């Protein structure tokens, strides 16, 4: 999926936002509209028309400006984010010349050239950054924790409950459905990016608004404990209380996880959300062997602690991974469960390995505290228990034979094209050349 969609998705889910998507053509716009309407929102996606003539004439900016004015005047949304995708960002429209406000509406440029955004996660970071950058410097009085990152709807409530026990609270949570969710960030005392990819936005908020940030999330046994004590330390709250609350929550997680022992199982995780770090944490703590975490997130300072934790427990992190890397890794170990991207899961299913798509199955669940851990592990167990079903179907389509799980048969190291040629899916140029003398 286009990395820029991570941003469009969160902007389109804001009820008082009316995003304009400057697409790179109808192919691009069709794709974004398609997935937006499937996953995100039952509402229109607006875009100025693009064509070579429009770009050549240079009339795009005038069209866009007129569109912005018309939408702001007619609908008065809180914000009109201008999502600039590959072509418009390459052409370089003078976005600075757009009005900053029209009436009560903020007009905010969100740069999303997919060729440099690379991942959904980065696009989400850009949204938080673009929106908060519009806000003035930090107010004087501050209180509470700003949660950053998509979580299960009940997670902020649960986090708030725990934070109150140690003497603070949740101030706001983004990405949220309202512009005020973002505006309220300047009231907070600390940012808590719950996923490690909000590195740019928290860095810039530190710079502009002087907001400090705390890494990690209350996920798993160690994670829950570390996060609670970390917040207390960063906010200079009562250490004794924090220690007792952190211990209590850690024991609850431990007890909940004990119901789902994963000892002896080997799992592979590949994701592009950023939370895959947290998931692997849970799996390892539950006893599973996870030799390999593939993430399309690029290496960044916020992930370093997580990475070190994982590395200590035998899990190698591959940043900026692609399909071929993942398929390659698939054959390194006899996996019992694969939690990954769509092409990887399709491949694993062909091999008869139970597998689920990270985004649809995992990203929508809570992972936090005891309830979250139990919920996630239950899903993983359930998936593993369906092994016979996956195996049977794989054998059926392999005409009764056990599908061969070798690197050469299923996943050529070179690239997808070679793989397709090897499977007669496409005719290679070499094969099409008639042999001499035939």
């Amino acid at each position, binding site marked *: 999926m286009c990395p820029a969609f991570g941003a469009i998705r969160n902007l389109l889910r804001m009820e008082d936002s009316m995003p304009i998507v400057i697409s790179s053509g109808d192919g691009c716009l069709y794709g974004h509209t398609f997935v937006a309407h499937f996953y995100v929102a039952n*509402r229109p996606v607006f875009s100025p028309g693009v064509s070579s003539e429009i770009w050549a004439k240079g009339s795009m900016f005038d069209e866009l400006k007129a569109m912005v004015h018309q939408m702001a005047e007619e609908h008065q949304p809180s914000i009109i984010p201008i999502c600039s995708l590959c072509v418009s960002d390459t052409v370089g429209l003078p976005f600075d010349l757009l009005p900053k406000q029209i009436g009560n509406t903020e007009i905010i440029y969100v740069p999303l050239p997919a060729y440099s955004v690379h991942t959904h996660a980065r696009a989400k970071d850009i949204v938080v950054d673009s929106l908060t950058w519009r806000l003035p410097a930090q107010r004087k009085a501050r209180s509470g924790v700003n949660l950053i990152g998509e979580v299960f709807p009940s997670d902020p*409530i649960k986090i708030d409950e725990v934070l109150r026990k140690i003497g603070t609270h949740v*101030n706001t949570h983004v990405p949220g*459905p309202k512009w005020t969710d973002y505006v309220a960030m300047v009231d907070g005392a600390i940012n808590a990016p719950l996923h490690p990819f909000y590195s740019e936005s928290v860095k810039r908020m530190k710079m502009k608004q002087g907001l400090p940030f705390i890494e990690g999330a209350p996920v798993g046994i160690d994670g829950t404990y570390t996060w609670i004590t970390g917040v207390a330390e960063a906010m200079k709250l009562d250490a004794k209380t924090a220690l007792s609350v952190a211990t209590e929550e850690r024991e609850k997680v431990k007890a909940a996880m004990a119901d789902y022992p994963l000892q002896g199982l080997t799992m592979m995780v590949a994701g592009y959300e950023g939370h895959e770090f947290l998931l692997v944490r849970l799996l390892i703590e539950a006893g599973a062997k996870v030799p390999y975490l593939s993430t399309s997130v690029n290496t960044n300072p916020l992930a370093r602690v997580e990475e070190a934790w994982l590395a200590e427990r035998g899990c190698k992190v591959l940043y900026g991974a692609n399909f071929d890397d993942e398929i390659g890794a698939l054959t390194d170990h006899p996996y019992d469960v694969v939690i990954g991207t769509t092409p990887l899961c399709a491949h694993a299913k062909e091999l008869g390995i139970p597998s689920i798509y990270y985004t649809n199955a995992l990203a929508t669940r809570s992972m936090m505290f005891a309830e979250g851990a139990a919920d996630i592990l239950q899903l993983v167990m359930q998936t593993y228990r369906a092994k016979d079903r996956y195996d049977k179907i794989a054998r059926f389509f392999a005409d009764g034979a056990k599908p061969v799980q070798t690197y050469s048969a299923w996943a050529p190291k070179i690239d997808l094209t070679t793989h397709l040629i090897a499977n007669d899916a496409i005719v290679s140029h070499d094969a099409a050349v008639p042999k001499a003398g035939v």
Partner: protein
Amino acid sequence: MAITPPRTRASSELQSDVINTPIRKRVTDLDHAGGDTGAMQVFASLGDANVVLDGPVGCHVMPAVAVINYTDCIPYLQNVTCSELSETEVTIAGTLGALKEKVARSQVEGRQVFIVSTPVSELIGASWTTMEAHIKGSALFFDSHSLDDDEWKSRDRALLFLWEHRDHFVRPADVAPHPAKTKPRVNIIGPTYGNFNSYSDIAELKRLIAGIGAEINLIYPFESKAYDTPHLSDADATIVMYEEYGKSIAREIGLPTFSGPIGLEATTEFLEGLGKTLGLEAEVAAFISHEKKTTLAAWQDIWRSTHSDFFANSPIAIVAPPTYKDGLTKYLGDELGLPIVYSAYRTGPESTPSEEVRIALRELSPSPMMVFGSINERMILAQEKMPTRFSQCSFPGAVVRRATGTPFMGYAGAVWLLQLVCEILFDTLFANLPTSASPPVKATMPTAQLMTSASDAEAGAKGRNSVLSWTDEAKALTEKTLKRVPFFVRVSVNKKLRAEAESLARERGTDVDLAVIEEVTARYAPGR
């Protein structure tokens, strides 16, 4: 000259020899028709039959005009009529006079007349012994046990009756003889009129049989004539399409018998079994292999896609006659892995009363994502305001299934059902998308003013946008409500519910308490 029918009841393989339906003191929303309807639907399916129902006008127009228009999309059955009994016949004259006249008019050249008893004629004791002396020609009388047998048992008996009378039917001189055998041959027993989805299923079975290099002997009674009946024994195997009827005649024909297969595994077993019986093992293996690359390529693609990831968390319920309850349980439950959280037979001696089904469905937590059933279950879902999607897999209930591309049986059926399940998933997803703010919510003030209006934040208290506290009662009720929501869309519903509750609590300046949640959940019907 009419032939005297056997005086003993035709024996049946179905559960009870006498009564196929449990004797109930109270019935709510019935799941089956009576014996007269079942028998009529069998006889009328024969291309050369005229059926005379010995009963009042309702016994004719209800099944053969009103209902058939929605089960089979046929305006009315042209080869069915009735004796139109009135007070005179019922109280004084008996049915004979009226019947005689109708039978005489129905006995046209080349048509076989079947007289079927109805509750009224059975009650007033219309006697075949008297009739046989008065009714000329070749008409056959079938005692449908309409007060006691349900439509399925009656279909079973009617088919057996046809086989027992096979020598009675005369092949007209101008009709070509039954075609000579060129390949191994297969009979298909069923469908008749009034069978759910039969047009597609018969098309798929034909495709499979042709695919393995066999040929159809007879599709009986639907695509046959009465005079074809003796040729049922010219086949090498018999497929009984439905569990509900047809086994008795198949047993008497005496050939190896197979059931209509629902699901990937059932179809493979079915084909391999047929191959062994017909000596077509190699052809069957080649056909299955070819199917994997053609018809089933769609199946494998969907299975490998993310669509199938949702199955384990998409509970379903099935309320249907055995063919569909057992077939769908095996395929959707065992093979695809959709949890079957409730299932019940609706027909035959084990039929579950509708009131029991209602209570069971209502109490399910979470609510199933979809229910396969009849209109009875559809009504329950609507009345109980359940967030559950419905798909029809049996009658009663108006549905159009005449295009032949929607089979439940065979490999094509496996693909179609898989597609159907995915479509229902998407439909559920769409109905629960978290945002539908169009036009967007209007801004009430400029951002600068928003910033300064947060005076409470200045004082170091909770900011205006803080997460609100929820009381334990409020959390408990929310959890209870959410548990009813199918898991697949629980996140979206949770988001909506939380947003509504918190906005109400903010308006009131309270925590999210029980009163708030009660108000929100009361006006809240997920999926609407």
